[in-house]
């Protein structure tokens, strides 16, 4: 059985999923605002979301991943957390 600590440990990814509603310029601005990305990185992630349906926008410890996912959700982007199994 996995202990709660090991279940939450390791590297976690914050993934943003595409939606047909939010404006591209809005998504770029949210990535900059929430994740502190520069304009070109934010734009790269936005295009990935748009063209591939999802983009891993951040990875690291669970607590911060939760913080970012929460903040993205507050701006009405659909964000999910996934454990990095690689």
């Amino acid at each position: 059985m996995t202990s709660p600590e090991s279940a939450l440990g390791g590297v976690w990814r914050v993934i943003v999923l595409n939606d047909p509603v939010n404006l591209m310029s809005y998504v770029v601005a949210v990535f900059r605002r929430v994740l502190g990305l520069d304009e070109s990185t934010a734009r790269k992630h936005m295009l990935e979301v748009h063209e591939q349906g999802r983009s891993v926008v951040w990875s690291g410890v669970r607590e911060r991943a939760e913080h970012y996912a929460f903040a993205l959700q507050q701006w009405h982007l659909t964000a999910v957390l996934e454990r990095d199994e690689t």
Partner: protein
Amino acid sequence: MKLEVKLHLPAVTPLLDVVKVAADSLGGCLAAPLRHDGLDAEFRSDWEAELVAAQNEDIRLLLALFGHEFFGTGVIVLDEANAEPVMRACAALRLRLRAHDLGALPDEALESGAVHVAGLAEPVQRAFMSYVFLATLQDLCLSHLGPSVPGV
């Protein structure tokens, strides 16, 4: 910085009715539902409650722009204090309109804006125009007021 926007009352008033109905219909629901299936149930419920409270507050601020004074002047004032809540509220309400009133329109049409408005039924026309109006407000905030970016 402050941005005063003069809106055409006869055009905007019917759209505000649609926006208010969309706001009321959200009630205690999130416009973008949580997709975190792996979260502990209690944690998830706390998260959801916080997000709903924040969403409600943002929408309250947006609707406050269109109070009694607005119907006298047609002017709304956007500034650094209300730009972010207004942008988030517009996103929430656009998601709601998309889910509840614009379901018949394909994603590609909504994304490209290539919608034959005259061919839509009247309630769908109004919902679509409200959807576009909210995007315009978002765009005004984005172009002139932010959002603020840490470290910039």
